[in-house]
Protein backbone atom coordinates (compact mmCIF):
# COMPACT_ATOMS: atom_id res chain seq x y z
CA UNK A 1 0.00 0.00 0.00
CA UNK A 2 1.35 3.43 -0.89
CA UNK A 3 1.28 6.53 1.26
CA UNK A 4 -2.00 7.21 3.00
CA UNK A 5 -2.52 10.95 3.26
CA UNK A 6 -6.31 10.97 3.55
CA UNK A 7 -7.28 7.57 4.89
CA UNK A 8 -4.51 7.26 7.49
CA UNK A 9 -5.59 6.48 11.06
CA UNK A 10 -9.10 5.54 9.92
CA UNK A 11 -9.21 2.64 12.35
CA UNK A 12 -8.24 4.74 15.33
CA UNK A 13 -11.21 4.85 17.70
CA UNK A 14 -12.63 8.35 17.92
CA UNK A 15 -11.02 9.59 14.69
CA UNK A 16 -14.46 10.97 13.79
CA UNK A 17 -14.35 13.31 16.79
CA UNK A 18 -12.35 16.47 17.27
CA UNK A 19 -10.24 14.97 20.05
CA UNK A 20 -9.45 11.78 18.18
CA UNK A 21 -8.58 13.73 15.06
CA UNK A 22 -6.33 16.10 17.00
CA UNK A 23 -4.50 13.19 18.61
CA UNK A 24 -3.33 12.17 15.13
CA UNK A 25 -2.03 15.66 14.36
CA UNK A 26 -5.35 17.07 13.18
CA UNK A 27 -5.58 20.88 12.88
CA UNK A 28 -1.77 21.19 12.89
CA UNK A 29 -1.93 22.09 9.19
CA UNK A 30 -4.40 24.83 10.06
CA UNK A 31 -2.03 26.28 12.66
CA UNK A 32 0.76 26.19 10.10
CA UNK A 33 -1.41 27.73 7.37
CA UNK A 34 -2.54 30.61 9.56
CA UNK A 35 1.13 31.59 9.92
CA UNK A 36 1.45 31.75 6.13
CA UNK A 37 0.30 34.43 3.73
CA UNK A 38 -2.85 33.41 1.82
CA UNK A 39 -1.05 33.76 -1.52
CA UNK A 40 1.69 31.44 -0.27
CA UNK A 41 -0.91 28.78 0.45
CA UNK A 42 -2.22 29.16 -3.11
CA UNK A 43 1.37 28.85 -4.35
CA UNK A 44 1.88 25.73 -2.25
CA UNK A 45 -1.23 24.13 -3.78
CA UNK A 46 0.02 25.11 -7.24
CA UNK A 47 3.37 23.46 -6.51
CA UNK A 48 1.64 20.28 -5.34
CA UNK A 49 0.15 19.75 -8.78
CA UNK A 50 -3.16 18.81 -7.12
CA UNK A 51 -5.93 18.37 -9.67
CA UNK A 52 -9.64 18.54 -8.94
CA UNK A 53 -10.88 15.19 -7.67
CA UNK A 54 -14.52 15.78 -8.66
CA UNK A 55 -14.04 14.41 -12.17
CA UNK A 56 -12.60 17.02 -14.50
CA UNK A 57 -9.07 17.00 -13.05
CA UNK A 58 -8.57 20.75 -13.41
CA UNK A 59 -5.46 22.03 -11.55
CA UNK A 60 -6.70 23.33 -8.21
CA UNK A 61 -4.01 25.98 -7.67
CA UNK A 62 -4.77 27.45 -11.08
CA UNK A 63 -8.50 27.50 -10.37
CA UNK A 64 -7.80 29.33 -7.11
CA UNK A 65 -5.59 31.88 -8.87
CA UNK A 66 -8.49 32.74 -11.23
CA UNK A 67 -10.75 33.84 -8.38
CA UNK A 68 -11.76 37.47 -8.97
CA UNK A 69 -11.16 39.77 -6.02
CA UNK A 70 -13.23 42.90 -6.56
CA UNK A 71 -12.87 45.07 -3.48
CA UNK A 72 -15.77 45.11 -1.06
CA UNK A 73 -17.44 42.02 -2.53
CA UNK A 74 -17.61 38.76 -0.56
CA UNK A 75 -16.03 35.64 -2.04
CA UNK A 76 -17.27 32.14 -1.40
CA UNK A 77 -15.77 28.69 -1.19
CA UNK A 78 -18.21 25.85 -1.78
CA UNK A 79 -17.39 22.24 -1.19
CA UNK A 80 -19.10 19.94 -3.65
CA UNK A 81 -20.27 16.95 -1.59
CA UNK A 82 -23.06 16.03 -3.99
CA UNK A 83 -21.33 12.75 -4.92
CA UNK A 84 -23.91 11.23 -7.26
CA UNK A 85 -21.84 9.90 -10.15
CA UNK A 86 -22.72 6.20 -10.28
CA UNK A 87 -19.82 4.14 -9.02
CA UNK A 88 -18.40 6.88 -6.81
CA UNK A 89 -18.58 6.65 -3.02
CA UNK A 90 -15.24 7.95 -1.74
CA UNK A 91 -16.47 11.34 -0.50
CA UNK A 92 -19.19 9.80 1.63
CA UNK A 93 -16.67 7.34 3.08
CA UNK A 94 -14.19 10.08 3.95
CA UNK A 95 -16.78 12.47 5.41
CA UNK A 96 -18.38 9.75 7.48
CA UNK A 97 -15.14 8.38 8.85
CA UNK A 98 -13.03 11.52 9.16
CA UNK A 99 -15.25 14.60 8.95
CA UNK A 100 -12.66 16.90 10.51
CA UNK A 101 -10.21 16.55 7.62
CA UNK A 102 -12.82 18.21 5.42
CA UNK A 103 -13.55 20.90 8.01
CA UNK A 104 -9.83 21.62 8.41
CA UNK A 105 -9.36 21.71 4.62
CA UNK A 106 -12.29 24.11 4.30
CA UNK A 107 -10.83 26.49 6.88
CA UNK A 108 -7.36 26.50 5.27
CA UNK A 109 -8.78 26.88 1.76
CA UNK A 110 -11.18 29.64 2.81
CA UNK A 111 -8.27 31.48 4.41
CA UNK A 112 -6.21 31.09 1.23
CA UNK A 113 -9.07 32.43 -0.91
CA UNK A 114 -10.19 35.16 1.45
CA UNK A 115 -13.66 33.70 1.95
CA UNK A 116 -15.39 34.48 5.23
CA UNK A 117 -18.49 32.38 4.62
CA UNK A 118 -18.23 28.89 3.15
CA UNK A 119 -20.64 26.08 2.49
CA UNK A 120 -20.49 22.34 2.14
CA UNK A 121 -23.27 21.25 -0.25
CA UNK A 122 -24.08 17.62 0.51
CA UNK A 123 -26.64 15.56 -1.35
CA UNK A 124 -29.85 15.15 0.63
CA UNK A 125 -29.78 11.36 0.58
CA UNK A 126 -26.69 11.46 2.77
CA UNK A 127 -28.63 13.17 5.54
CA UNK A 128 -26.91 11.13 8.24
CA UNK A 129 -23.57 12.46 6.98
CA UNK A 130 -25.04 15.97 7.04
CA UNK A 131 -25.59 15.53 10.77
CA UNK A 132 -22.06 14.11 11.20
CA UNK A 133 -20.65 17.20 9.48
CA UNK A 134 -22.86 19.54 11.50
CA UNK A 135 -21.57 17.94 14.69
CA UNK A 136 -17.96 18.31 13.52
CA UNK A 137 -18.60 21.96 12.64
CA UNK A 138 -20.09 22.57 16.11
CA UNK A 139 -16.99 21.00 17.67
CA UNK A 140 -14.73 23.16 15.53
CA UNK A 141 -16.57 26.33 16.58
CA UNK A 142 -16.26 25.32 20.24
CA UNK A 143 -12.52 24.78 19.79
CA UNK A 144 -12.03 28.21 18.21
CA UNK A 145 -11.25 26.85 14.73
CA UNK A 146 -14.31 28.57 13.30
CA UNK A 147 -15.97 31.86 14.03
CA UNK A 148 -14.28 35.17 14.77
CA UNK A 149 -10.52 35.69 14.94
CA UNK A 150 -9.58 32.04 14.44
CA UNK A 151 -6.65 31.09 16.74
CA UNK A 152 -5.83 34.77 17.12
CA UNK A 153 -5.08 35.18 13.41
CA UNK A 154 -7.66 37.89 12.79
CA UNK A 155 -9.31 35.62 10.20
CA UNK A 156 -13.08 35.09 10.53
CA UNK A 157 -14.93 32.18 8.98
CA UNK A 158 -18.46 30.85 9.19
CA UNK A 159 -18.83 27.36 7.77
CA UNK A 160 -22.22 25.84 7.05
CA UNK A 161 -23.45 22.54 5.71
CA UNK A 162 -26.34 22.66 3.25
CA UNK A 163 -28.37 19.67 2.05
CA UNK A 164 -29.67 18.99 -1.44
CA UNK A 165 -32.76 16.93 -2.18
CA UNK A 166 -32.05 14.37 -4.88
CA UNK A 167 -30.75 15.52 -8.26
CA UNK A 168 -27.54 14.26 -9.87
CA UNK A 169 -27.27 17.45 -11.90
CA UNK A 170 -26.69 19.47 -8.73
CA UNK A 171 -23.15 18.05 -8.74
CA UNK A 172 -22.47 20.24 -11.80
CA UNK A 173 -21.04 23.35 -10.21
CA UNK A 174 -23.39 25.97 -11.63
CA UNK A 175 -26.46 23.81 -10.98
CA UNK A 176 -25.14 23.43 -7.46
CA UNK A 177 -25.02 27.22 -7.10
CA UNK A 178 -28.59 27.55 -8.35
CA UNK A 179 -29.66 24.88 -5.90
CA UNK A 180 -27.82 26.58 -3.04
CA UNK A 181 -29.68 29.76 -3.94
CA UNK A 182 -32.92 27.87 -3.36
CA UNK A 183 -33.86 27.21 -6.97
CA UNK A 184 -34.22 24.29 -9.37
CA UNK A 185 -30.85 22.82 -10.28
CA UNK A 186 -30.59 24.12 -13.83
CA UNK A 187 -26.96 24.63 -14.93
CA UNK A 188 -26.01 28.16 -15.96
CA UNK A 189 -24.56 29.16 -19.29
CA UNK A 190 -20.83 29.84 -18.97
CA UNK A 191 -19.21 32.35 -19.12
CA UNK A 192 -19.40 34.01 -16.69
CA UNK A 193 -17.57 31.36 -14.71
CA UNK A 194 -18.18 30.98 -10.97
CA UNK A 195 -14.71 32.44 -10.29
CA UNK A 196 -16.16 35.75 -11.51
CA UNK A 197 -19.90 35.40 -10.87
CA UNK A 198 -20.86 32.49 -8.69
CA UNK A 199 -22.99 32.25 -5.58
CA UNK A 200 -25.38 35.25 -5.42
CA UNK A 201 -23.34 36.79 -8.24
CA UNK A 202 -20.13 36.86 -6.20
CA UNK A 203 -16.76 35.28 -7.05
CA UNK A 204 -16.87 31.64 -6.00
CA UNK A 205 -14.66 28.56 -6.00
CA UNK A 206 -16.31 25.14 -6.09
CA UNK A 207 -14.14 22.16 -5.16
CA UNK A 208 -14.76 18.49 -4.53
CA UNK A 209 -14.56 17.00 -1.00
CA UNK A 210 -11.39 15.04 -1.75
CA UNK A 211 -9.70 18.07 -3.34
CA UNK A 212 -10.29 20.17 -0.23
CA UNK A 213 -9.26 17.37 2.11
CA UNK A 214 -5.99 16.97 0.16
CA UNK A 215 -5.04 20.55 1.02
CA UNK A 216 -4.48 19.41 4.63
CA UNK A 217 -1.62 16.96 3.89
CA UNK A 218 -0.24 19.34 1.23
CA UNK A 219 0.23 22.03 3.87
CA UNK A 220 1.65 19.46 6.28
CA UNK A 221 4.25 17.89 3.96
CA UNK A 222 4.61 20.86 1.52
CA UNK A 223 3.51 21.04 -2.10
CA UNK A 224 6.91 19.93 -3.27
CA UNK A 225 6.78 16.68 -1.30
CA UNK A 226 3.23 16.02 -2.46
CA UNK A 227 4.27 16.49 -6.08
CA UNK A 228 6.94 13.78 -5.66
CA UNK A 229 4.17 11.22 -5.27
CA UNK A 230 2.69 10.01 -8.54
CA UNK A 231 3.80 10.29 -12.14
CA UNK A 232 4.12 13.42 -14.30
CA UNK A 233 1.05 15.61 -14.04
CA UNK A 234 -0.77 13.04 -11.96
CA UNK A 235 0.60 13.93 -8.56
CA UNK A 236 -0.31 12.76 -5.10
CA UNK A 237 -2.77 10.18 -3.93
CA UNK A 238 -6.27 9.51 -5.19
CA UNK A 239 -9.25 7.81 -3.61
CA UNK A 240 -10.63 5.09 -5.84
CA UNK A 241 -14.12 3.69 -5.26
CA UNK A 242 -13.98 0.08 -6.40
CA UNK A 243 -17.24 -1.76 -7.05
CA UNK A 244 -18.70 -4.58 -9.07
CA UNK A 245 -17.47 -8.15 -9.47
CA UNK A 246 -14.31 -8.00 -7.38
CA UNK A 247 -13.34 -9.81 -4.23
CA UNK A 248 -12.71 -6.69 -2.18
CA UNK A 249 -14.89 -3.75 -3.13
CA UNK A 250 -14.26 -0.55 -1.19
CA UNK A 251 -12.44 2.77 -1.12
CA UNK A 252 -8.69 2.63 -1.70
CA UNK A 253 -6.19 5.46 -1.48
CA UNK A 254 -3.61 4.84 -4.19
CA UNK A 255 -0.50 6.70 -5.15
CA UNK A 256 -1.30 7.79 -8.69
CA UNK A 257 0.65 5.55 -11.06
CA UNK A 258 -0.33 2.11 -9.75
CA UNK A 259 -0.74 -0.25 -12.74
CA UNK A 260 -4.41 -1.03 -13.41
CA UNK A 261 -3.59 -4.73 -13.42
CA UNK A 262 -2.11 -4.48 -9.94
CA UNK A 263 -5.10 -2.50 -8.75
CA UNK A 264 -7.55 -5.13 -9.95
CA UNK A 265 -5.67 -8.28 -9.03
CA UNK A 266 -3.47 -7.55 -6.04
CA UNK A 267 -4.59 -8.46 -2.53
CA UNK A 268 -3.82 -4.93 -1.38
CA UNK A 269 -6.59 -3.60 -3.57
CA UNK A 270 -9.50 -5.30 -5.34
CA UNK A 271 -8.19 -8.83 -4.82
CA UNK A 272 -9.14 -10.08 -8.28
CA UNK A 273 -12.42 -11.03 -9.90
CA UNK A 274 -14.82 -12.85 -7.60
CA UNK A 275 -15.80 -16.49 -8.06
CA UNK A 276 -12.68 -17.06 -10.15
CA UNK A 277 -14.32 -15.44 -13.18
CA UNK A 278 -12.54 -13.60 -15.96
CA UNK A 279 -12.51 -9.83 -16.34
CA UNK A 280 -14.73 -8.56 -19.15
CA UNK A 281 -14.81 -4.77 -18.89
CA UNK A 282 -14.18 -1.81 -16.61
CA UNK A 283 -15.73 1.62 -16.28
CA UNK A 284 -12.76 3.33 -14.70
CA UNK A 285 -13.93 6.78 -13.64
CA UNK A 286 -17.65 6.77 -12.83
CA UNK A 287 -20.57 5.99 -15.12
CA UNK A 288 -19.85 8.94 -17.44
CA UNK A 289 -16.51 7.71 -18.78
CA UNK A 290 -16.12 5.25 -21.66
CA UNK A 291 -16.21 1.55 -20.80
CA UNK A 292 -13.12 -0.40 -21.88
CA UNK A 293 -12.81 -4.13 -22.56
CA UNK A 294 -10.32 -6.10 -20.43
CA UNK A 295 -7.51 -6.00 -22.96
CA UNK A 296 -7.66 -2.21 -23.31
CA UNK A 297 -8.00 -1.39 -19.63
CA UNK A 298 -4.99 -3.55 -18.70
CA UNK A 299 -2.82 -2.40 -21.60
CA UNK A 300 -2.91 0.56 -23.94
CA UNK A 301 -3.32 -0.03 -27.67
CA UNK A 302 0.49 0.18 -27.90
CA UNK A 303 0.85 -2.69 -25.46
CA UNK A 304 2.10 -0.53 -22.59
CA UNK A 305 0.77 -1.38 -19.14
CA UNK A 306 -2.10 0.98 -18.35
CA UNK A 307 -1.52 2.99 -15.16
CA UNK A 308 -3.92 4.65 -12.76
CA UNK A 309 -3.07 8.21 -13.85
CA UNK A 310 -5.05 10.90 -15.68
CA UNK A 311 -2.74 10.57 -18.69
CA UNK A 312 -2.34 6.82 -18.96
CA UNK A 313 -6.07 6.09 -18.68
CA UNK A 314 -6.72 8.68 -21.38
CA UNK A 315 -4.03 7.35 -23.70
CA UNK A 316 -5.40 6.53 -27.13
CA UNK A 317 -8.20 9.10 -26.80
CA UNK A 318 -11.70 7.73 -26.85
CA UNK A 319 -10.79 5.27 -29.63
CA UNK A 320 -8.91 3.03 -27.20
CA UNK A 321 -8.73 4.96 -23.92
CA UNK A 322 -10.96 6.38 -21.21
CA UNK A 323 -10.67 8.79 -18.25
CA UNK A 324 -9.81 8.73 -14.55
CA UNK A 325 -12.88 10.88 -13.90
CA UNK A 326 -14.08 10.71 -10.32
CA UNK A 327 -12.26 7.43 -9.68
CA UNK A 328 -15.43 5.32 -9.65
CA UNK A 329 -13.94 2.00 -10.76
CA UNK A 330 -16.71 -0.41 -11.80
CA UNK A 331 -15.58 -3.92 -12.66
CA UNK A 332 -17.61 -6.36 -14.76
CA UNK A 333 -16.93 -10.07 -15.05
CA UNK A 334 -17.25 -12.28 -18.11
CA UNK A 335 -20.97 -12.94 -17.58
CA UNK A 336 -21.97 -9.29 -17.68
CA UNK A 337 -24.13 -7.91 -20.43
CA UNK A 338 -22.52 -4.64 -21.49
CA UNK A 339 -25.69 -3.78 -23.40
CA UNK A 340 -27.78 -4.13 -20.29
CA UNK A 341 -25.28 -2.12 -18.31
CA UNK A 342 -25.43 0.75 -20.78
CA UNK A 343 -29.22 0.47 -20.87
CA UNK A 344 -29.13 0.91 -17.10
CA UNK A 345 -26.90 3.98 -17.38
CA UNK A 346 -29.10 5.43 -20.14
CA UNK A 347 -32.10 5.15 -17.84
CA UNK A 348 -30.08 7.02 -15.21
CA UNK A 349 -29.19 9.87 -17.59
CA UNK A 350 -32.72 10.10 -18.92
CA UNK A 351 -34.02 10.31 -15.37
CA UNK A 352 -31.46 12.91 -14.31
CA UNK A 353 -31.44 15.30 -17.30
CA UNK A 354 -32.54 18.72 -16.07
CA UNK A 355 -34.41 19.21 -19.33
CA UNK A 356 -33.07 22.64 -20.33
CA UNK A 357 -31.46 21.60 -23.64
CA UNK A 358 -33.42 19.65 -26.24
CA UNK A 359 -30.55 17.39 -27.38
CA UNK A 360 -30.03 16.19 -23.82
CA UNK A 361 -33.67 16.08 -22.72
CA UNK A 362 -34.93 14.31 -25.85
CA UNK A 363 -31.76 12.42 -26.78
CA UNK A 364 -31.39 10.68 -23.43
CA UNK A 365 -35.01 9.53 -23.69
CA UNK A 366 -34.54 8.22 -27.21
CA UNK A 367 -31.39 6.34 -26.28
CA UNK A 368 -33.16 4.78 -23.32
CA UNK A 369 -36.14 3.78 -25.45
CA UNK A 370 -34.03 2.27 -28.22
CA UNK A 371 -31.90 0.35 -25.75
CA UNK A 372 -35.07 -0.90 -24.02
CA UNK A 373 -36.36 -2.11 -27.38
CA UNK A 374 -33.07 -3.88 -28.01
CA UNK A 375 -33.18 -5.62 -24.64
CA UNK A 376 -36.75 -6.73 -25.35
CA UNK A 377 -35.48 -8.46 -28.46
CA UNK A 378 -37.33 -6.06 -30.76
CA UNK A 379 -34.27 -4.23 -32.04
CA UNK A 380 -33.21 -3.87 -35.65
CA UNK A 381 -29.73 -3.53 -37.08
CA UNK A 382 -30.33 0.09 -37.97
CA UNK A 383 -30.93 0.84 -34.27
CA UNK A 384 -27.21 0.62 -33.60
CA UNK A 385 -26.51 3.34 -36.16
CA UNK A 386 -29.41 5.35 -34.82
CA UNK A 387 -28.01 5.17 -31.29
CA UNK A 388 -24.64 6.25 -32.60
CA UNK A 389 -26.22 9.15 -34.44
CA UNK A 390 -28.19 10.34 -31.41
CA UNK A 391 -25.23 10.32 -29.04
CA UNK A 392 -23.19 12.26 -31.63
CA UNK A 393 -25.92 14.88 -31.74
CA UNK A 394 -25.90 15.33 -27.96
CA UNK A 395 -22.15 15.47 -27.43
CA UNK A 396 -20.82 19.02 -27.30
CA UNK A 397 -24.21 20.56 -28.08
CA UNK A 398 -25.53 21.27 -24.63
CA UNK A 399 -25.31 23.88 -21.88
CA UNK A 400 -23.44 21.66 -19.45
CA UNK A 401 -21.19 18.59 -19.73
CA UNK A 402 -24.02 16.29 -18.63
CA UNK A 403 -24.84 15.83 -22.31
CA UNK A 404 -21.36 14.44 -22.99
CA UNK A 405 -21.59 12.30 -19.88
CA UNK A 406 -24.80 10.75 -21.22
CA UNK A 407 -23.41 10.26 -24.73
CA UNK A 408 -20.00 8.76 -23.99
CA UNK A 409 -21.10 5.53 -22.29
CA UNK A 410 -23.36 4.67 -25.24
CA UNK A 411 -20.67 5.50 -27.77
CA UNK A 412 -18.06 3.40 -25.98
CA UNK A 413 -20.36 0.41 -25.56
CA UNK A 414 -21.04 0.40 -29.31
CA UNK A 415 -17.40 1.04 -30.17
CA UNK A 416 -16.03 -1.84 -28.14
CA UNK A 417 -18.95 -4.26 -27.89
CA UNK A 418 -20.81 -3.89 -31.17
CA UNK A 419 -21.09 -7.62 -31.61
CA UNK A 420 -23.00 -7.86 -28.35
CA UNK A 421 -25.58 -5.39 -29.67
CA UNK A 422 -25.84 -7.44 -32.85
CA UNK A 423 -26.35 -10.56 -30.79
CA UNK A 424 -29.31 -8.98 -29.01
CA UNK A 425 -30.82 -8.07 -32.36
CA UNK A 426 -30.25 -11.52 -33.83
CA UNK A 427 -31.16 -13.70 -30.88
CA UNK A 428 -33.77 -11.55 -29.23
CA UNK A 429 -31.57 -11.46 -26.21
CA UNK A 430 -27.95 -12.03 -25.59
CA UNK A 431 -26.73 -15.34 -24.28
CA UNK A 432 -24.81 -13.52 -21.57
CA UNK A 433 -26.61 -13.28 -18.26
CA UNK A 434 -29.40 -10.80 -18.13
CA UNK A 435 -29.05 -9.79 -14.54
CA UNK A 436 -27.17 -10.72 -11.44
CA UNK A 437 -28.51 -12.57 -8.48
CA UNK A 438 -27.65 -12.03 -4.90
CA UNK A 439 -26.45 -14.79 -2.70
CA UNK A 440 -26.56 -17.49 -5.41
CA UNK A 441 -30.29 -17.23 -5.14
CA UNK A 442 -32.31 -19.86 -6.98
CA UNK A 443 -35.89 -18.68 -7.15
CA UNK A 444 -37.97 -15.87 -5.80
Amino acid sequence: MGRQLLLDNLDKPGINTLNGYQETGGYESLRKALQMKPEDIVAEVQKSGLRGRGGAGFPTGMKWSFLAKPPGEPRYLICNADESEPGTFKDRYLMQRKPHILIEGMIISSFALGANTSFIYIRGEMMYVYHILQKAIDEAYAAGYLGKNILGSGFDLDLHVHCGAGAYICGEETALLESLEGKRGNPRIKPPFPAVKGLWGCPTVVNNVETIAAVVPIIRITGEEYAKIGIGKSTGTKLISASGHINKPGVYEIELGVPVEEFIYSEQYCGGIRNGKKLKAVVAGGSSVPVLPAELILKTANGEPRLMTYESLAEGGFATGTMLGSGGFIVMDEDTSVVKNVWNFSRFYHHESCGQCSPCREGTGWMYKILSRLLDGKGETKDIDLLWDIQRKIEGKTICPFGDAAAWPVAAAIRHFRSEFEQYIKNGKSDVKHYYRINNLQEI
Partner: protein
Amino acid sequence: MATNKEIKFSDDALALIEKIIKRYPEGKHKSAILPILHIAQAEFDGWLSPEVMDYVASVLKIQPIEVYEVATFYTMFNLKPVGKCLIEVCHTGPCWLMGAEDVVRYIEKKLGIKNGETTADGMFTLKTVECLASCGTAPMMQIGETYHENLTLEKVDTILEEHRNAGVRRTHWEKEKIKS
Protein backbone atom coordinates in the same frame (compact mmCIF):
# COMPACT_ATOMS: atom_id res chain seq x y z
CA MET B 1 -53.89 10.08 4.60
CA ALA B 2 -54.54 13.76 3.97
CA THR B 3 -54.17 15.69 7.16
CA ASN B 4 -57.05 17.60 8.66
CA LYS B 5 -54.81 18.77 11.46
CA GLU B 6 -53.75 22.36 11.46
CA ILE B 7 -50.60 22.76 9.41
CA LYS B 8 -48.05 24.28 11.71
CA PHE B 9 -44.42 23.46 12.43
CA SER B 10 -43.59 22.30 15.95
CA ASP B 11 -41.72 24.78 18.16
CA ASP B 12 -38.54 22.73 17.74
CA ALA B 13 -38.89 22.86 13.97
CA LEU B 14 -39.52 26.61 14.00
CA ALA B 15 -36.43 27.17 16.15
CA LEU B 16 -34.32 25.02 13.83
CA ILE B 17 -35.68 26.76 10.74
CA GLU B 18 -34.86 30.14 12.20
CA LYS B 19 -31.32 28.93 12.85
CA ILE B 20 -30.98 27.62 9.30
CA ILE B 21 -32.24 30.85 7.71
CA LYS B 22 -29.54 32.77 9.59
CA ARG B 23 -26.85 30.85 7.72
CA TYR B 24 -27.53 32.80 4.55
CA PRO B 25 -26.87 36.50 4.05
CA GLU B 26 -29.59 39.07 4.63
CA GLY B 27 -32.22 38.79 1.90
CA LYS B 28 -30.99 35.37 0.70
CA HIS B 29 -33.32 33.39 2.96
CA LYS B 30 -34.76 31.55 -0.04
CA SER B 31 -31.61 29.41 0.12
CA ALA B 32 -33.11 27.67 3.13
CA ILE B 33 -35.88 26.12 1.04
CA LEU B 34 -34.40 22.62 0.60
CA PRO B 35 -33.61 22.02 4.28
CA ILE B 36 -37.01 23.42 5.24
CA LEU B 37 -38.85 21.16 2.81
CA HIS B 38 -37.01 18.18 4.30
CA ILE B 39 -38.11 19.29 7.75
CA ALA B 40 -41.66 19.75 6.44
CA GLN B 41 -41.71 16.15 5.21
CA ALA B 42 -40.60 15.01 8.63
CA GLU B 43 -43.28 17.07 10.36
CA PHE B 44 -46.19 16.48 7.98
CA ASP B 45 -46.52 12.74 7.32
CA GLY B 46 -43.63 12.31 4.92
CA TRP B 47 -44.95 14.24 1.95
CA LEU B 48 -45.58 17.75 0.65
CA SER B 49 -49.26 18.47 0.06
CA PRO B 50 -50.15 21.74 -1.71
CA GLU B 51 -51.28 23.07 1.67
CA VAL B 52 -47.92 22.23 3.24
CA MET B 53 -46.09 23.88 0.35
CA ASP B 54 -48.20 27.02 0.73
CA TYR B 55 -47.47 27.02 4.44
CA VAL B 56 -43.70 26.69 3.78
CA ALA B 57 -43.95 29.64 1.39
CA SER B 58 -45.57 31.73 4.13
CA VAL B 59 -42.93 30.73 6.68
CA LEU B 60 -40.14 31.57 4.26
CA LYS B 61 -41.95 34.69 3.00
CA ILE B 62 -41.71 33.70 -0.66
CA GLN B 63 -44.35 33.02 -3.31
CA PRO B 64 -46.00 29.57 -3.33
CA ILE B 65 -44.90 29.09 -6.95
CA GLU B 66 -41.27 29.31 -5.83
CA VAL B 67 -41.88 26.38 -3.52
CA TYR B 68 -43.75 24.34 -6.16
CA GLU B 69 -40.95 24.91 -8.68
CA VAL B 70 -38.40 23.50 -6.30
CA ALA B 71 -40.51 20.72 -4.80
CA THR B 72 -41.24 19.30 -8.27
CA PHE B 73 -37.58 19.31 -9.33
CA TYR B 74 -35.99 17.25 -6.57
CA THR B 75 -36.73 13.55 -6.34
CA MET B 76 -36.61 13.33 -2.56
CA PHE B 77 -39.77 15.38 -2.20
CA ASN B 78 -42.90 13.25 -2.26
CA LEU B 79 -45.83 14.97 -3.89
CA LYS B 80 -48.17 12.12 -2.99
CA PRO B 81 -48.73 10.41 0.36
CA VAL B 82 -46.23 7.65 1.14
CA GLY B 83 -46.20 4.78 3.60
CA LYS B 84 -44.65 5.21 7.04
CA CYS B 85 -41.65 3.45 5.71
CA LEU B 86 -40.40 4.52 2.29
CA ILE B 87 -38.11 1.79 1.02
CA GLU B 88 -35.67 3.22 -1.50
CA VAL B 89 -33.77 0.54 -3.37
CA CYS B 90 -30.83 1.64 -5.48
CA HIS B 91 -31.08 0.16 -8.99
CA THR B 92 -28.19 1.89 -10.77
CA GLY B 93 -25.37 0.03 -12.60
CA PRO B 94 -23.05 -1.06 -9.79
CA CYS B 95 -25.97 -2.17 -7.59
CA TRP B 96 -27.55 -3.90 -10.59
CA LEU B 97 -24.30 -5.85 -11.07
CA MET B 98 -24.72 -7.12 -7.51
CA GLY B 99 -28.37 -8.16 -7.71
CA ALA B 100 -30.47 -5.04 -7.12
CA GLU B 101 -33.16 -6.42 -9.43
CA ASP B 102 -33.60 -9.36 -7.08
CA VAL B 103 -34.05 -7.04 -4.14
CA VAL B 104 -36.76 -5.08 -5.94
CA ARG B 105 -38.53 -8.21 -7.17
CA TYR B 106 -38.34 -9.81 -3.75
CA ILE B 107 -39.82 -6.81 -1.95
CA GLU B 108 -42.56 -6.48 -4.57
CA LYS B 109 -43.53 -10.08 -4.04
CA LYS B 110 -43.20 -10.01 -0.27
CA LEU B 111 -45.32 -6.88 0.15
CA GLY B 112 -47.66 -7.53 -2.78
CA ILE B 113 -47.00 -4.12 -4.33
CA LYS B 114 -45.26 -2.85 -7.42
CA ASN B 115 -42.48 -0.30 -7.53
CA GLY B 116 -44.04 3.08 -6.66
CA GLU B 117 -46.98 1.62 -4.75
CA THR B 118 -47.93 1.64 -1.07
CA THR B 119 -49.22 -1.32 0.95
CA ALA B 120 -52.90 -1.21 1.89
CA ASP B 121 -52.08 -0.74 5.57
CA GLY B 122 -50.05 2.38 4.73
CA MET B 123 -46.91 0.87 6.21
CA PHE B 124 -44.58 0.51 3.21
CA THR B 125 -43.94 2.32 -0.07
CA LEU B 126 -41.42 0.89 -2.52
CA LYS B 127 -39.38 3.21 -4.73
CA THR B 128 -36.33 2.57 -6.87
CA VAL B 129 -33.71 5.31 -6.72
CA GLU B 130 -30.47 6.17 -8.46
CA CYS B 131 -26.96 5.55 -7.10
CA LEU B 132 -26.72 6.50 -3.42
CA ALA B 133 -22.90 6.47 -3.30
CA SER B 134 -22.77 3.09 -1.62
CA CYS B 135 -21.79 0.97 -4.61
CA GLY B 136 -18.99 -0.87 -2.79
CA THR B 137 -21.54 -2.34 -0.41
CA ALA B 138 -24.13 -3.24 -3.03
CA PRO B 139 -26.91 -4.13 -3.22
CA MET B 140 -28.30 -1.51 -0.89
CA MET B 141 -31.41 0.37 0.11
CA GLN B 142 -32.25 3.36 2.24
CA ILE B 143 -35.03 3.73 4.80
CA GLY B 144 -35.25 7.11 6.49
CA GLU B 145 -31.69 8.30 6.97
CA THR B 146 -30.32 4.77 7.27
CA TYR B 147 -28.33 3.00 4.59
CA HIS B 148 -28.81 -0.77 4.61
CA GLU B 149 -25.89 -2.28 2.74
CA ASN B 150 -24.65 -5.66 1.48
CA LEU B 151 -28.26 -6.81 1.32
CA THR B 152 -29.35 -10.41 1.26
CA LEU B 153 -32.98 -11.47 1.16
CA GLU B 154 -32.73 -12.58 4.79
CA LYS B 155 -31.52 -9.12 5.72
CA VAL B 156 -34.41 -7.56 3.84
CA ASP B 157 -36.82 -9.77 5.80
CA THR B 158 -35.33 -8.71 9.12
CA ILE B 159 -35.26 -5.02 8.28
CA LEU B 160 -38.86 -4.92 7.08
CA GLU B 161 -40.01 -6.92 10.10
CA GLU B 162 -38.32 -4.50 12.46
CA HIS B 163 -39.99 -1.57 10.78
CA ARG B 164 -43.38 -3.20 10.82
CA ASN B 165 -43.02 -3.85 14.54
CA ALA B 166 -41.77 -0.37 15.33
CA GLY B 167 -44.53 1.19 13.23
CA VAL B 168 -42.95 4.64 13.26
CA ARG B 169 -42.64 7.00 10.33
CA ARG B 170 -39.15 7.40 8.92
CA THR B 171 -38.03 10.43 6.93
CA HIS B 172 -34.68 11.49 5.50
CA TRP B 173 -34.43 14.27 8.04
CA GLU B 174 -35.44 12.09 10.96
CA LYS B 175 -37.96 13.60 13.33
CA GLU B 176 -35.78 13.16 16.41
CA LYS B 177 -33.08 15.26 14.74
CA ILE B 178 -35.33 18.30 14.48
CA LYS B 179 -34.38 19.35 17.98
CA SER B 180 -31.26 21.50 18.47
